[in-house]
């Protein structure tokens, strides 16, 4: 008796978690990994919450994206919050993930800038940390901690804010203004990539996710 009640509560918790994740923009892969609900149930849940079918296709899989200028700062902010919640406050992994992502979004909204780090990216980031591909390195100038490839020598590391690359001055606002005038239907992640390309650097991230970010773009 008690057992079945418990599992009902557990089930409710799982559904609630899935709904929270869907609202924040989670793709099906994230939901399948993080909840024990069936694929069919998740699909239905997704349609109910969002009113559309979940997008298909692979999740981003490159660590390099997290090392590019804007994404690095956003990722570092998010992961710093996540780490505090889990390590200092004993929050459970996935709860901490959702809370940290909300806190991250909050800050970005306050700053009037775009949430460069989408939820699925944030989740991939978490997995990269868990598999030891990424680490936090301390900036020798501001003592903030920033996302880095694991095992990179970081004795003299200076972060992207303390020593921004020359192209980094263009704010997201300036960019979106430019967009408005050109009328381009650009998207969050695209804008980040637009910079290195324009400077002749190699575009750092994979193209897989790009067309799917549109939902989060929030054009008015």
């Amino acid at each position: 008796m008690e057992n079945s009640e418990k599992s009902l509560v557990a089930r409710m918790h799982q559904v609630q978690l899935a709904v929270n994740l869907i609202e924040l923009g989670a793709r099906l892969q994230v939901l399948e990994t993080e909840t024990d609900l069936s694929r069919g149930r998740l699909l239905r849940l997704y349609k109910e919450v969002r009113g559309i079918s979940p997008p298909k296709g692979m999740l981003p899989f490159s660590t390099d994206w997290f090392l590019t200028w804007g994404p690095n700062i956003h990722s570092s902010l998010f992961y710093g919050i996540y780490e505090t919640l889990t390590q200092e406050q004993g929050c459970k992994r996935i709860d901490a993930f959702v809370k940290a992502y909300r806190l991250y979004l909050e800050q970005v909204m306050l700053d009037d800038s775009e949430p460069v780090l989408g939820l699925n990216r944030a989740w991939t980031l978490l997995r990269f940390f868990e598999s030891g591909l990424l680490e936090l390195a301390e900036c020798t100038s501001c003592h903030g901690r920033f996302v880095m490839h694991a095992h990179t020598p970081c004795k003299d590391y200076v972060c992207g804010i303390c020593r921004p690359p020359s192209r980094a001055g263009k704010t997201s606002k300036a960019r979106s203004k430019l967009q408005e005038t050109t009328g381009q239907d650009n998207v969050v992640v695209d804008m980040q990539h637009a910079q290195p390309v324009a400077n002749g650097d190699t575009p750092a991230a994979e193209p897989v996710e790009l067309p799917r970010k549109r939902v989060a773009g929030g054009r008015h």
Partner: protein
Amino acid sequence: MNIEELLEEIQDTNLTYLLLAQRLLKEDYAAAQFRLKLTDDMAKLLMSLSTRQLSRLARTNQFLFRLCFDNADQVQKIVGEKRDSAMMQTHASLLMSRAAAANA
């Protein structure tokens, strides 16, 4: 402004802080703990206090809370950033989330 007024303001600020802290903790405990940079013990205690106890705590000539940055250089780095004010806020937030970890 005379000293009485200043003292009153300090006490008002203390009480406002305590009341807000309680509200935040009741709303979302973990997120509030992060925002307030409180240990678990302190967060639980604050949450349990009555308004009367809170105002007794607030009645002092000193601030109950202090700046969470210990390092003046760090603050200088944040306010000295010329490029992008949005990034400055993000930077501040990033450094503060770390300050929480350092003090806990």
